[in-house]
């Protein structure tokens, strides 16, 4: 079904990006050991195997977030999406995964599909997720039990929905930052980056 589709619309783009976040969050939670590995199940998507949580509460939470995100993506009002990993006991921020989203707002006016095949986009997404997996080579081991939090940066004039609240940026001081790959659907462009607490060597 995808092979015949040549172009991409705003709606489709929002869906693709939201789907990326869903898999991306799951990957990070699995890779960084925020939830025990037994609570994940392996599925195949983007021609690669990915881990999806089976924890019902977490699943529900993620679905809610991603649904809301999809709406904002469709309205082109999101600027950033951030996953913050904090130490459960001290509430110190240990890792910060930031995804900057650039929306092409002109897509809202014209409904004509853009020229970019879903396959190319998915290839780009795949390499981003691969890179997320590969970050274990330099990220410090998370030794303490951790919690995670999701932050969304939106345009200023947006109404805050019931289930959301305003929050601080939760930035790590003295952090090491690594830019990851980016991908674009030609309507939404997502730049990824991870920041982590600097090692006390050197």
């Amino acid at each position: 079904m995808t092979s015949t589709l040549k172009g991409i619309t705003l709606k489709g783009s929002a869906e693709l990006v939201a789907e990326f976040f869903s898999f991306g969050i799951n990957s990070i939670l699995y890779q960084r050991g925020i939830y025990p590995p037994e609570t994940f199940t392996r599925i195949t998507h983007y021609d690669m195997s990915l881990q999806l949580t089976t924890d019902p509460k977490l699943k529900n939470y993620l679905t809610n977030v991603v649904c809301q995100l999809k709406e904002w993506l469709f309205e082109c009002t999101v600027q950033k999406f951030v996953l913050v990993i904090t130490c459960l006991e001290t509430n110190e921020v240990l890792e910060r995964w930031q995804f900057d989203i650039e929306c092409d707002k002109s897509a809202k006016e014209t409904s004509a599909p853009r020229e970019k095949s879903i396959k190319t986009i998915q290839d780009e997404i795949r390499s981003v997720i691969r890179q997320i997996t590969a970050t274990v080579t330099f990220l410090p081991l998370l030794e303490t039990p951790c919690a995670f939090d999701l932050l969304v940066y939106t345009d200023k004039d947006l109404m805050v929905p019931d289930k959301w609240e305003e929050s601080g940026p939760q930035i790590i001081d003295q952090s090491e930052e690594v830019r990851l790959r980016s991908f674009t659907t030609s309507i939404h462009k997502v730049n990824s980056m991870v920041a982590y607490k600097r090692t006390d060597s050197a």
Partner: protein
Amino acid sequence: MAEGGDVEWELSKENIQPLRRGRAISALHHALSQQQDGLSSAINQQRQAFESELRMYDGDDPLDVWDRYIKWTEQTFPQGGKESNLATILEQVVTRFTEGNKYYDDPRYVELWIKFAENCPEPLDIYRYMQAQGIGVTQTSLYIAWSEEYENQGNCRKADLVYQEGFKKCAEPHDKLLQFHKALQARVSRQVMMNVEEDDSDDEPKEPQRVSLADLKSRGKKKAIAPINRVGSAIRSIPGGIQSHGASVLGNASNSKLVVFDENKTRAGPSEPKLESWAAPPTSKAKENEQKPGIWCDVKMPQKSKFGHTVMAPPPPKPTFQPFVEESDQPPTMTPCKINPAVNSVLSARKPCREETPLKRLQEHHQQQKEAESGKLHEQSMYCKELLLSGATEFCFEELRAERYFKKVTQEVKGEKDPANATPN
């Protein structure tokens, strides 16, 4: 976006050893970009600086230099390996400060021991040795590393016991010990729960099963059957080799043809294996080949004739003629070689033999120290052997002298400058 340069770490991600504390990405980029054109002079210079600092340091915290040196090495050689000299340095530092227990409870020293242990083939031995010597017994990190090693080997009970030992010794920081112990308990209980669930779900009897590979099929005319005896999941804990307990093997029909003779079995009946020095070589009653060694050159295999008698083949007659040898022809007495034959002592770097584990060397060192204390040592080097050989590389006298000279010069320059600065003020 400067993505082009940033993917380098991803391309060589398999060659980067993960560190507990993570890596500084700038150091990683630096190390990876330099990898392509060999060891750069910058790295060599830095290493040399560390090496000479090790020797020239005269403050009261010599461990600090070592600590920085090792951290630098870890960051600079992401792939580890021989080039990094990490194993050598770790062994050096660990051995060096066993004299006098100044650092025994220093978290840095214990951390170095743990790194050393992780580099060794048998980390558990090292941890036991540490405990016996009283190194780091009040440090939480020792118990965490020790317990994690047990857990990795699948021995959760021992892993728990290690924490109990830590509690007994009141290891610091206490919170961390408590937290890691809790985490272990949580993991174990979750595992048990999972196992119970799995046991409920499948009612199949537990019979020998192959883990992953299927039975090898014979091809063509050959009817060879490869003996395979992988059984259950417990097989993982046994390090590769022959299984000594035959019970599980018996169930495997394909293997029953082949009975391996085990000479240890017949002997190890009543007596328990004890660690004692052998008064006499063990009796050879279980030996199979009883024949005495003798001269073999004229012995012939008796051959059976058609009629069943054994006949000896007649010895080949000696040639009655002299083979012709050309006068000018001299057979080459030696294969041509580039090395001057007068030089017969070719040196190569000594490789530690396989039985010589780092732990063994450590114990030897310890032994030597004891002997030295009791005045039994017969050797005494009359030069600063310690200074020349410490660190990962060897220094020569001139290098040391130069270091001292430069130090003196810089001090003199400073001494001259200071009064000059003082006058205008």
